[in-house]
């Protein structure tokens, strides 16, 4: 009799389905997983340590690069932590803008997730459809902050700038004709808010389109139903948050339970799953996109009717207007101090969490009264979810590992930090 042994297989770190740089060491019994040992840290940049060596505002940009598909939500947790420690409340218009962009970001993230998850388990078309809509949302990012991804738009005390009155336009080039440009610019004639509104009107039909491709698709269901089941109690114990927790049927959403900014004034529902498998988590995220769309719409309506300041007027924390610096000595001093030394945050510690598209994204900030954080700990939802990988894939087939990675919505920027 030949000796039969389990086989150890290496998956990644460079594998298209690993969503970045995940190395998985899989112990296989035939095609069944006995044990999965994820090796992470290949993208570790020491964000937390870097932040300790910089004035507070210089780290906002690092937050974008954590979970690089939901940039503004990362910033949000960071600025919230600073604001709570300094006892600052941003103007209400800034809070609406933040909520609107948080939800735009949620849609961005879920579109990316849906496309990549679909592609991983054999649905090519969804990927293309999702990226078509993502393009419009990135244009919103660009209009407001100047960059398509790493916005650095939220600041302690508000947001950097008010929403622009006009949208950037496409131009005619050698490979883009007049007619093509006219079509592309059709809904860019008004302000950013007009553009976002036209998006919210169009988007529910797009979600329907994704659903016709997937929800009742036999192959999709075979790949996701009953895969990676997590019981509700176990999900809480493992530290799951966000759609991973709600997919298991636990109704927990920080936007409802511990509302921050203006979420308590908005009308939306929290979808929960029943079985806690990949398919339920898919349904939860699809519904979240619809709900986010509704929130964005409500914010657009409010923002149209309520002009006002978008950042506080305290120049110890926010830069003065450039105009004011021309003939006001004090503004000049404030500007100089802010950009050379930054501002000092009072001594203390705070944990600020937001409902990030992936789950609870928390910033634990310890300040010793200096112009730099003493300790910054980023609580990344993906890190916690990935730590449960072994439990979720045990007893499944090799191909299901890919489905589980997909359903966890892993992004290595935040897992490795």
């Amino acid at each position, binding site marked *: 009799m030949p000796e039969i042994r389990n086989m150890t297989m290496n998956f990644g770190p460079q594998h298209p389905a690993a969503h970045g740089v995940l190395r998985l060491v899989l112990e296989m019994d035939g095609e069944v997983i006995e044990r999965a040992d994820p090796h992470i840290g290949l993208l570790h940049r*020491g964000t937390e340590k870097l932040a300790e060596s910089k004035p507070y505002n210089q780290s906002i940009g690092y937050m974008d690069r954590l979970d690089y598909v939901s940039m503004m939500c990362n910033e949000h947790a960071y600025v919230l932590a600073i604001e709570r420690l300094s006892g600052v409340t941003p103007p209400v218009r800034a809070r609406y803008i933040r909520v609107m962009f948080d939800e735009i970001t949620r849609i961005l993230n879920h579109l990316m997730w849906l496309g990549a998850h679909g592609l991983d388990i054999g649905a090519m078309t969804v990927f293309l459809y999702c990226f078509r809509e993502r393009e419009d949302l990135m244009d919103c990012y660009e209009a407001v902050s100047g960059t398509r991804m790493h916005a650095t738009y939220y600041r302690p005390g508000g947001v950097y700038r008010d929403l622009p009155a006009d949208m950037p336009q496409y131009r005619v080039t050698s490979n883009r004709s007049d007619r093509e440009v006219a079509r592309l610019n059709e809904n860019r004639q008004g302000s950013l808010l007009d553009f976002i509104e036209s998006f919210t009107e169009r988007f529910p039909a797009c979600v329907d389109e994704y659903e016709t491709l997937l929800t009742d698709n036999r192959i999709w269901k075979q790949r996701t139903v009953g895969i990676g089941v997590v019981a509700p109690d176990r999900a809480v114990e493992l530290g799951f948050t966000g759609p991973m927790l709600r997919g298991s049927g636990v109704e927990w959403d920080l936007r409802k339970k511990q509302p921050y900014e203006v979420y308590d004034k908005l009308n939306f529902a929290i979808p929960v799953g029943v079985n806690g498998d990949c398919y339920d988590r898919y349904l939860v995220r699809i519904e979240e996109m619809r709900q986010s769309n509704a929130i964005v719409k409500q914010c657009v309506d409010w923002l149209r009717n309520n002009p006002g300041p978008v950042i506080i007027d305290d120049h110890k924390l926010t830069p003065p207007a450039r105009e004011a610096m021309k003939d006001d000595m004090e503004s000049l001093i404030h500007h100089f101090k802010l950009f050379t030394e930054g501002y000092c945050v009072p001594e203390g510690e705070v944990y600020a969490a937001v409902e990030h598209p992936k789950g609870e994204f928390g910033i634990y900030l*310890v300040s010793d009264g*200096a112009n730099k954080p003493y300790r910054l700990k980023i609580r990344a939802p993906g890190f916690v979810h990935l730590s449960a990988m072994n439990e979720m894939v045990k007893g499944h087939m090799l191909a299901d590992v890919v489905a589980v990675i997909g359903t966890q919505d892993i992004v290595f920027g935040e897992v490795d930090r």
Partner: protein
Amino acid sequence: MTQAPFPDTLLNDLHECLGPEIIRDKIEAGQVTIDVSPADLPEVCLKLRDDESLAFKQLSDLCGIDYLAYGKADWETGDTTRTGFSRGVSEGVYIDTRDIEDRFAVVYHLLSLKRNQRLRVRSFVSGQPAKIPSVTHIWAGANWFEREAFDLFGILFEEHPDLRRILTDYGFIGHPFRKDFPLEGNVEVRYDPDQGRVVYQPVTIKNRVLTPKVIRRDNRHPAPEDKRAEN
């Protein structure tokens, strides 16, 4: 609002449940922090999780802190008028010359879904190397967090099932998030064409501190002494 229900009722319930095991407590920005000793930690955590009225079923976060450089600025600015500013020069690295009692702390952020409240538990770790009991048997989610705190701070978690490095490179030496570990690191890698492989060498870059760390008191915020009196 951070937490809807009142933090002081939580603190009362905690005192009722834990009694003398709480060394210190404070409420800051609406968040409750309690300090416990590492020896009591497993027992306290079990009570926090299993007590019917507290029910802290979820561990949101666990992290290490190195208090080596706490409250130390690079640049003294107190007496500016008479002497002028000192030069804002800093190495950015704090050398561990004194034997600091309780240099490291482990901070646990707990969440009770039932009460809709958060709690911060902090435990100062002493000893060389710093050791603290693991809570993996209490919250399954603690596993990777403890590996991370071990990797970055060198805190040992006793009875952890699999205490390996997690974020740093295979074969990494040192614990990078300690305050006496330089920001630019100790070694760098490059491809050596002669040997035909990637080699390690001492770092060739030097850390430049553009903005020194400054501690300033703002009169609009309560001074730390007043804050302590409040709690």
